[in-house]
């Protein structure tokens, strides 16, 4: 149910942009802006489908190619990719990683997709929850106990705790709004990212980075890779 709502949103955004363009002869500049917004909505929908596809494939873990990865580089790449989308929602993306984090051995497309879909969902959720002139979202990573790295997305989105996540997991497929604080159109992204992280590393958990609350997954770091 939530996934269909989330996938309906980018299609509705494209449809509404087209209807608006059909309504009047707009200047080329305005038409170009709406075309760009539509392209970003389409990217967002495709991104959700890709995360879901990777989730379905995550059952065959041993067949997934793992590769060494620097988390900070990945977060920079995601931030760069999502910046135009975030701008539509008056949101600035910042990357904040602890210095000298050890590399991790991961299935790069899965980690990238999980964090990307989580980020875009929290961008939409934050704007829906509170009305402000501008918003901020932080892609962060820091070392965590047990030789692991916590990587996640941090923002001022309210109502995301371990308890609400647990409740939401049990409501997947049965409730329209498994995360009550998050609007339809953003919850499935959070839950698909959670399931993808759970299949490959650890499920998402409520965490904080530089005093900003958010959701993070814990990825085992590789000591061997650190010495390479």
């Amino acid at each position, binding site marked *: 149910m939530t996934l269909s709502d989330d996938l309906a949103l980018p299609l509705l955004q494209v449809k509404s*942009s087209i209807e*608006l363009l059909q309504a009047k002869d707009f200047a080329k500049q305005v038409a170009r802006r709406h075309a760009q917004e539509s392209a970003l909505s389409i990217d967002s929908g495709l991104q959700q489908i890709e995360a879901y596809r990777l989730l379905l494939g995550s059952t065959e873990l041993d067949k997934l190619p793992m590769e060494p990865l620097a988390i900070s580089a990945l977060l920079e790449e995601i931030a760069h990719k999502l910046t135009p989308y975030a701008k539509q929602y008056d949101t600035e993306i910042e990357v904040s990683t602890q210095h000298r984090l050890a590399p991790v051995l991961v299935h790069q497309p899965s980690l990238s997709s999980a964090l990307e879909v989580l980020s875009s969902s929290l961008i939409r959720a934050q704007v*829906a929850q509170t009305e402000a002139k501008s918003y901020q979202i932080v892609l962060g990573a820091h070392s965590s106990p047990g030789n692991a790295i916590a990587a996640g997305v941090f923002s001022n989105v309210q109502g995301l705790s371990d308890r609400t996540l647990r409740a939401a997991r049990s409501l997947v497929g049965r409730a329209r709004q498994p995360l009550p604080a998050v609007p339809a159109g953003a919850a499935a992204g959070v839950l698909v990212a959670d399931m993808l992280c759970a299949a490959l590393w650890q499920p998402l958990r409520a965490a904080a980075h530089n005093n900003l609350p958010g959701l993070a997954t814990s990825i085992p770091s590789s000591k061997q890779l650190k010495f390479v």
Partner: protein
Amino acid sequence: MPRVLLIETDRQLAKNLQSYLELNDFIVDIHSDIQNAIMSTDTQCPDVIILDLILAGRSGIEFLYELRSYPEWQSVPVIATGHISQDELSHYGSAFEQLNVSAYLPKHSAFDRLAGEIRKLLQPAKV
């Protein structure tokens, strides 16, 4: 010009609908959270309210209960929107009646249908 209060969670959808309605000679105020929407109702006195039924944290029905609790806002027309199946819609039926909801339109409805519905609700007083 008639004034519309649009309560919608997605910023982009809201902006597109606002632009469309403004082209059709409406003034549109956008809000995504209930508290600001209630305050806007008090200060801007909308002629029609378009309400997304599923908001972040609280439902559109809660907004309606609060809105209708004020005597001056008991008769302002409300158009509810959302992704609701026919089955669910029948459950909402009595609440819609009790809360004086003028119409329900699926969220994917064409803008011109929505604008037509607003005009219909405002006749003959404003349009």
